[in-house]
């Protein structure tokens, strides 16, 4: 029976990947619009902007104040509302990182100088990020955002890594644009 296992696993893997492919084709019919690099760039930027919001939601300041100054009923209400807020923030962050990934894959599959190692790194980072984000959603839902704070810091680091790797890759995909930007920056000619 054990000799069957590799064949069964292989068959199931192929079946799963076929289902994933068909599902992807059905759910992303209008992919070209979603994947436009313009949107991707704005997503990259807003991930950065949202970091401040996330730090505030998960930060200890508000909770310290509420726990010090208010009765337990208000504290419970605060925790409930903060949980809803944290879950919304996490889902939004996940969506934006997914948009970045979608834009990334839409661009790079046409690129001649694609780096396989970088691609694998990005894919792993992305799947790790998704795993962590989904785990966090579960944790926040169960325990609230205050106790989940420490884990969130790790998410920020991974998100920043993903962003860094992605920007490196964009520089490879379209070095001309990035070079222009870089040169202008070095020469101090950029105007906001």
């Amino acid at each position, binding site marked *: 029976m054990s000799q069957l296992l590799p064949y069964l696993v292989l*068959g199931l893997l192929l079946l799963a990947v076929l289902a994933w492919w068909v599902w992807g084709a059905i759910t992303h019919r209008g992919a070209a619009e979603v994947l436009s690099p313009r949107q991707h760039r704005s997503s990259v930027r807003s991930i950065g902007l949202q970091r401040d919001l996330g730090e505030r939601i998960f930060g200890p300041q508000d909770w310290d104040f509420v726990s010090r100054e208010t009765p337990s009923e208000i504290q419970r209400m605060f925790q409930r509302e903060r949980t809803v807020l944290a879950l919304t923030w996490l889902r939004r962050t996940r969506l934006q990182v997914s948009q970045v990934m979608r834009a990334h894959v839409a661009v790079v599959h046409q690129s001649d100088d*694609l780096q396989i190692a970088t691609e694998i790194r990005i894919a792993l980072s992305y799947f790790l990020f998704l795993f962590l984000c989904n785990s966090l959603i579960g944790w926040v839902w169960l325990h609230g955002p205050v106790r989940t704070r420490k884990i969130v810091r790790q998410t920020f680091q991974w998100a920043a890594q993903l962003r860094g790797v992605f920007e490196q890759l964009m520089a490879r995909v379209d070095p001309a644009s990035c070079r222009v930007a870089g040169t202008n920056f070095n020469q101090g000619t950029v105007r906001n």
Partner: protein
Amino acid sequence: MFNQILWWIGNAIEALILARSIKGKLYEKYPAFYFYLSTVLLIELLRFTAYTFQPSLHRLLYWYTEYLVATVGYGVILEIYKHALKSSPGAARIARVFLLGVLAAVILKVVANALTNPVWSPATTLADLERDLRAVQALLLFVIVALLAYYRVPVGRNLKGIAFGYGLYVCVCVMSLAFDSLPAFELQPEWRYVQRIAYLAALSIWAYTLWSYRPIPQPEIESEIERNYKILAGHTMRVLSRARSFLKLGGEL
């Protein structure tokens, strides 16, 4: 009786797909796939003739022709690879690396098996050989389809049908041939229907998706990229400019 019905329905659908390919000149676009389909149809008819007039020859002929069909199937995979990744050099590059890896692993395994197990038994070897050939096909298809799914490479309806139908059939073949080697399953005639039903399902998918020629959509995003990259560069400049101002102010960047 049920097997006979399945067999005739299969042949009829195959003939229909081939007739449609002649009418729509689809065979010019996907020659390897239609060659595979024609080979299968001819072999089925040959087996039927042998079964009717020379039943003793049928079993041996069955295994040799099964092996032939599995081998011709590699042409279909090559065609899927060639057409699907034509406009995606990046994804094609990854595919080449992985496919060469698969090939190297298979060669190593064959050599290792030949060295450790020098005893040859034609009857079991042909069955095992078909299972292994199908397993390698499944691996190759897995790599190609995974890349198509991950990079969302635009694939036309024709090619999507060929890949999905063939993938489904190969998947069922690998699993059923693996179970076939178990004594408990070998003697159950119903077990043989699984492959035939899977092939009928694949034929139905092909008949539907290959009814007429649908070109592979060229990624419009290519021109979008050029246009949007200018916007992208503008964004980069603004971001860098802001970063510089942060530095001047002694901010965190």
